[in-house]
């Protein structure tokens, strides 16, 4: 059956995502976030896009979750006040509207006769995309990463001065 694996992954990942937002302890929330990222990378493995899947693991679990965990441990595990009643309603409304838009998307894409392309992913096409098509994008990315590094350093600088 074609749907079982993605559906199971969807249940698994969305449970992890919900737990990461709703757990009492932020550390457990960060662990659940790591599990969510793991679920996403399993999605990518299942779609036969191994480079993206491993990139996801290395960057999200290896760097972002670690840094979030570090911040949580510095800031403190215990929650401050949580929940905003009017906005919860707004969030629920957003949820409903998104499900509705999904229904519309279903109506279009569900009617198409699509099969997953059988072409195996070749690393050469990714290299070609990076080296040839997206060279300028890499340059912009470099500027952006540098700028964010400068910004982060400037923000953290004061912190370092005081300790």
């Amino acid at each position, binding site marked *: 059956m074609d749907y079982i694996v993605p559906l199971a992954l969807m249940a698994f990942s969305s449970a992890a995502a919900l737990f990461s937002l709703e757990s009492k302890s932020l550390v457990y929330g960060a662990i659940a976030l790591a599990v969510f990222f793991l679920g996403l990378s399993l999605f990518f493995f299942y779609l036969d896009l191994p480079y993206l899947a491993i990139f996801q693991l290395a*960057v999200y679990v290896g760097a*972002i979750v670690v840094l979030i965990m570090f911040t949580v441990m510095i800031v403190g595990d215990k929650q401050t006040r949580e929940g905003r009643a009017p906005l919860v309603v707004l969030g629920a409304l957003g949820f409903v509207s998104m499900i509705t838009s999904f229904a519309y998307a279903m109506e279009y894409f569900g009617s198409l006769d699509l099969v997953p392309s059988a072409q195996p992913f070749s690393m050469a096409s990714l290299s070609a995309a990076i080296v040839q098509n997206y060279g300028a994008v890499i340059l912009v990315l470099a500027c952006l990463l540098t700028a964010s590094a400068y910004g982060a*350093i400037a923000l953290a600088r004061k912190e370092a001065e005081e300790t």
Partner: protein
Amino acid sequence: MAVLGDGSFWFLVYLLLLLTTGLVLYSVSFALAPRVRSPLKEETFESGQIPPGGKRVRLVMQYFIFLLLFMIFDVVSMLLFAWGYAFFDYGPAGSAYPVLLLFFLVPPIYLTLKVARQVGV
């Protein structure tokens, strides 16, 4: 779509084997070892001192900037692997942008090290 193709079945098997080994060693230890509770034993070990202070203290974080830098570099070095894969295929012209990407990231390292030196880290 390859689910368990490409030999990844053995990845699953190996993972399960390792988990089994770890858990079995652990549970054997739990079963064999004695357990006697005593408040002194469960006190956290701080070289014989009585542990002062609260439960979880907040600690110094003067190397935080290096962690931020690590995040940026992690992404960049993973991206560079995609270029390294096709290093010989595109000649010198293909290397222009990736090398530029590397050069862009040297000044932040320099700045971070300078900041770190300024604050005496």
